[in-house]
């Protein structure tokens, strides 16, 4: 059996945070340019916000394009009529339910 998703997430998150924290707390020497340093500092928050925005946009898109099947509903109404007629014809004894 594979590792449950929860633990996959925890593993990925703690690996990322360990790397990020050790950079931020200066556990090792780097000679990064100032801009890259700034970017790395805000990376966790940035990634979270980027994910949230993407999710919201995707959700909006999916709700907007959610097919509304009017023809399917109309077709079902017709099917129901036809079914009732046919059932009566072959002698369905509870047809009075529909009156």
């Amino acid at each position: 059996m594979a590792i449950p998703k929860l633990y996959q997430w925890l593993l990925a998150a703690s690996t990322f945070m360990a790397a990020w924290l050790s950079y931020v707390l200066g556990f090792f020497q780097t000679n990064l340019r100032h801009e890259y340093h700034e970017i790395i500092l805000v990376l966790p928050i940035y990634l979270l916000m980027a994910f949230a925005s993407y999710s919201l946009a995707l959700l909006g898109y999916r709700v907007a394009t959610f097919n509304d099947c009017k023809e399917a509903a109309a077709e079902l109404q017709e099917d129901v009529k036809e079914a009732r007629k046919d059932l009566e014809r072959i002698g369905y004894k509870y047809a009075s339910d529909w009156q």
Partner: protein
Amino acid sequence: MAERNKYSVLLPTYEERNNLPLIVWLLVKHLSKSGHDFEIIIIDDGSPDGTLDVAKELQRLYGKDKIVLRPREKKLGLGTAYIHGIKHATGNFVIILDADLSHHPKFLPEFIRKQAEKDYDVVTGTRYRGNGGVFGWDLKRKVISRGANYLTQVLLRPGVSDLTGSFRLYKKAVLEKLINACVSKGYVFQMEMIIRARQFNFSVAEVPITFVDRLYGESKLGGSEVVAFFKGVLYLFATT
């Protein structure tokens, strides 16, 4: 000589006196039309509205080999209903769908055709892809549905677009194995079935379907269902 395929349709019912004759008529119509060998197994959980009498009448009209009755004393849950239903199923494939006309039998030939494409172990209906869809849902319901589905995609990565659907075709042996491996109830059970199927490396395909629910009457999505859903997702997230 190749074995002929036979499809056992499982129809758990509770208070479906009005819908049962209609869904049976539609099943007979669409499965006969496409020339498939089938049986319809009705598992009624002691409905007080006389659903079982209706089932017996349908058996009289369509014959005991087409309509099989496996009633139970009281409402005992979906998983056990399936187990009870397949005990005497003579098909090598099992179809499950709702008895309230929200799942239309006209899609069954497409399910069957899709299964044969690559001998899939499971074929599941999706409302979210292709021509799939719903009817008459307001904005709130659509947002909740898509939101909940997105949560399952992110957390569970199920490999299917519609995890909570219950319009499906299974190979009988696959269904038996999955039911025995599942512990959840209600529609979390339906989610768990697909997750376990993927765990066991069963192949799963999708067919777009239209979901027309509650043509008559109000649908209810109560607070308890929402809580149960979240608990179910978290349970699957932590254990699979």
